[in-house]
Every structure is written in C-alpha cells, then in structure tokens.
C-alpha cells in the first residue's frame, strides 16, 4: 500500500471510536455472494484484476469504513453460524434455497450501502449492494461490480476477492464428499429427509469458510495500515482519554458571610 504524508481526516474517526458508532440498522446486505452459477453473475461485473485497478489504496481516512465493513462481515458470518447450528441441531433450514432465504433476513450496515451508491455511474436497477461479487468456476477467479471496485478502497476489495476464492476452493475441494450423496438424492435412490439439510449444510459450511478468509484478509490489512501511520491516532486501538481535573468543591453561596457572623458572635459573646 502507498500512502501520502498528508494528514487524513482522522478527527472524525477519533470521534467514532469514542462511541459515535454507526448503528447496524437498515437495509444493507453488501455481503459477497457464494460461488454463483455463471449465468447468475451479471454481465457488467469485472474480473478481479480489472477491479483492483479501478480501486484505490486504502488510507487512514478509510479506516472507519474498513472497520464498518469488517464488523459487517463478522455479523454476516455469525448469521451463517447461527443457521448452521440450527441445521445441525434440528435439520432446518431444510434446503439450499431455504437457508439462502433465511440469510436474506440479515440486516447489514447502511453506511456501506450509502458509500456504494456514491459511484459516479450508479444505477439502482443494475448495481445491487446485496450482490457485489461472485466466484466464476469457469475462470477460476472473482468477478465484481465495478461500482464496488470504484467506491471502496483496495484492501476491502481484496478481502472480497479472498472471500470468493475461498468459496471456489472450498466448494470444489469438498465436492468429492457431497457428490455421492448428491447422485443418490438426485436419482431418488435416497428418499430420506436428509438430502435437503445436507445440501443446506454444504452451503452454510462454504459461507462460513469464505467469510472467515475474507475477515482474516481485512483484519491483516487494517493492522498493516495502522502500522503505516504510527505518528497518528489512525489506529483501531482504544483512544487514550484525557484525565479529568481533580475535584475541587466550591463553597455554597453565603457561606463566608455565615462564618464571619459566627466568628463575630463568638468574639463579642452575643
């Protein structure tokens, strides 16, 4: 990463760190999709190398968004973990589609959607925050929405690419196990109610794995960025609060008048 020496707008970030955190409400998904069938990847998506070129280096001023993106990924991963736990304990969600639908209830950070929409040629009908990337089995790489590439800095883009690569590798590396069950279920040899939940479990496993890899990549980038700005408060560490002045109680109104009166009465014997 390259960074210039000018001081980025870190006061805003300091304020955020002091508690003005964005509340996670709203309608954001902004979570990369799983390995998608080729025909589900929109035509306008760009190969990962093109996307990286469209993006820009992350700087100190990007840290709030990097943190927000990371938090969003962690929250999404937790949602998948919750779904997987349900499948493991109850067998539900009971299908691939069912588990996708259940994940659709995940509510992300609206700040991410807002930044995505700042793309200069943003088209609400075409650019969807709920689907900014996909893994192409045929090309062996990630394809991403150019608006995502242009509006988010390179480390965020790179973590999304890591997410998609993880999907490709996990799905193909584990398919040997699932293929026997898939053939048996598809051919009707197994009429068991296990076919659906096992399908759901494969998707949940892939998502958990991919989110883990994306999160790992972004955490490393954030740590590196903090190291590149040692002289600034541009870190994810807790800010040192200024110490409050020592407590000095003030005298109540009329206090000294009463002291003087008491003193006079004592001296004059009244």
């Amino acid at each position, binding site marked *: 990463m390259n960074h210039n020496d000018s001081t980025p707008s870190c006061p805003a970030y300091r304020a955020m760190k002091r508690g003005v955190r964005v509340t996670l409400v709203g309608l954001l998904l902004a979570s990369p999709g799983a390995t998608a*069938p*080729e025909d589900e990847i929109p035509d306008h998506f760009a190969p990962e190398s093109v996307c990286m070129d469209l993006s820009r280096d992350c700087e100190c001023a990007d840290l709030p968004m990097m943190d927000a993106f990371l938090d969003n990924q962690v929250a999404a991963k937790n949602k998948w973990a919750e779904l*997987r736990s*349900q*499948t*493991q*304990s*109850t*067998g*539900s969600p009971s299908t*691939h589609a069912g588990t996708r639908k259940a994940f659709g209830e995940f509510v992300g950070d609206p700040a991410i959607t807002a930044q995505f929409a700042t793309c200069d040629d943003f088209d609400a009908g075409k650019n969807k925050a709920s689907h900014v990337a996909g893994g192409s*089995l*045929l*090309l*062996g*790489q990630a394809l991403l929405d150019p608006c995502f590439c242009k509006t988010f800095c390179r480390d965020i883009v790179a973590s999304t690419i890591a997410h998609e*690569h*993880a999907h*490709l*590798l*996990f*799905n*193909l*590396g*584990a*398919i*040997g*196990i*699932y*293929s*026997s*069950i*898939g*053939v*048996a279920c*598809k*051919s009707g*040899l*197994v009429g*068991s*109610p*296990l076919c659906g*939940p*096992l*399908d759901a*479990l*494969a998707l949940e*496993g*892939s998502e*958990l*794995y991919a989110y*883990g890899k994306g999160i790992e990549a972004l955490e490393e980038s954030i740590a590196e960025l903090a190291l590149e700005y040692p002289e600034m408060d541009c870190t994810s560490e807790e800010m040192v609060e200024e110490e409050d002045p020592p407590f000095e109680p003030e005298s109540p109104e009329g206090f000294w008048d009463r002291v003087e009166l008491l003193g006079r009465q004592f001296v004059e014997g009244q």
Partner: protein
Amino acid sequence: VDVVAPSLLATGFSVWTRLSKLGCVGVQLAAVMSAGVACSDSGGSASSGDAQDDGRGESTSENDDADDQPNGSDDTENEEPEGEAPTGSGKFGAIWRQVSAELMVIDADTPIPELVSVEIPEAVPFPETESEVELYEQITDGRHVTYAYVVGAEVYYRITTPATEGDDAYSLQRGDAVSLYTMEDGRLTASSTLSTGNGIVQVIATFEEYTGTFPPEEWPSEMVEGEIGGPLQ
C-alpha cells in the same frame, strides 16, 4: 469384527460394517469420531507401512510435477510426461477417481439404516448449477489433493487439505465432514460421515486408479491452486 459400541451411532456403524463387507473401514471411522469403539480385524487392509512410505515418497515428486506441470499434451509426446501418476502403484500417492459409493442413511424417522449403492459418473454435477466437474484425488506428502476440472472451464484446480496419518490410513476434515482414507486390496477407499439434526449419512467411496497422462490432455494448462481444511470456525 469385534465392536464395542457404546451408542446407537456406533451400533449403526457396526451393522453397516457387517452388511457392507467392506472390512473395517466403517469401524475405523467410528473410532475417529467417538472413542470406545474397537476394531480387531484389519479386514484386508493393504500392508500398511510399505503403502504409506511408498505412497508418500512417490507423491513428493508427483506433487512437484503437478506443480510445475500443466503443459497440455505437447510436452508429453517425446519424453516421460511431468506429473504422470505412478501408474499401477496401488498406493495413496497414485491418482484416483471415485467410481462408486455405498451409503448408509440413518434418519430420525427410520430406525433401520437405509443402504444404497451408487455409481459415480466421470463428471459429477456441481450443486445448484448446470456445471459438471471431473475430480481426481491423491494423498501425497501428508496432504490430500483434489484435482478438479469444471467441464468447459479455462482453468483446472489443485486443492490441498492437510491429512493426519493414522494406522494405515489418513484422516482429514473438510467443512463438516470427517473422512478416513484407507487402502483396501490395492484400491483407495474413503469413509466420510455427515450429520444433521435429523440423521446421519455415512459414505464409503471406492476409487479406481487413473493410469493415463495426468492432468488429462483435455484439461487446460492454467492451474488455480489453494488450500482448505480444518474445522469451521
């Protein structure tokens, strides 16, 4: 086979072991998953030490070859092709393709295990897509390797997973599945178990050794490589 089964699960494996006549594979897997299951019959396993040592020794060079490899067919005409599998070796380090599977399905509604046999086509369907994938497997240098080619793709994949060496066997975890690879009469066999809240599926996959040039000539030269493995966090 002498099975000490402390649970219904282990009992299921015991039944499966007896019915499938596939030696001790199922019981070995059960032993991996829950302590307290014993197996006293080697069930015709390949003589271990040699298989492991040879397999791993050969596979190191295979692995290197595979890394350097993807050169298509041109390079293979006048000299021994790089990455060619140790044909006929019958060892873990050979290149293997799954040809069939025996499934035991136990679900909550059906107390009696359902046993199913399936033939695996040369290209298996990729879930939720129209794509088909040609798959080959290998265990080399303490790692399980999956070679995958999505029909029509511009690349093929080489995906490694750390494998733990056991007694004449290798175990590995991919996602929610634990798999145990053994050699049975010179053929690679993999036993994997998956479970959900409403049941368990155990798959015993049987492989056939691939004896041609590897990677196959039809595959593209570009390779995408990566590693997966371990329990999901």
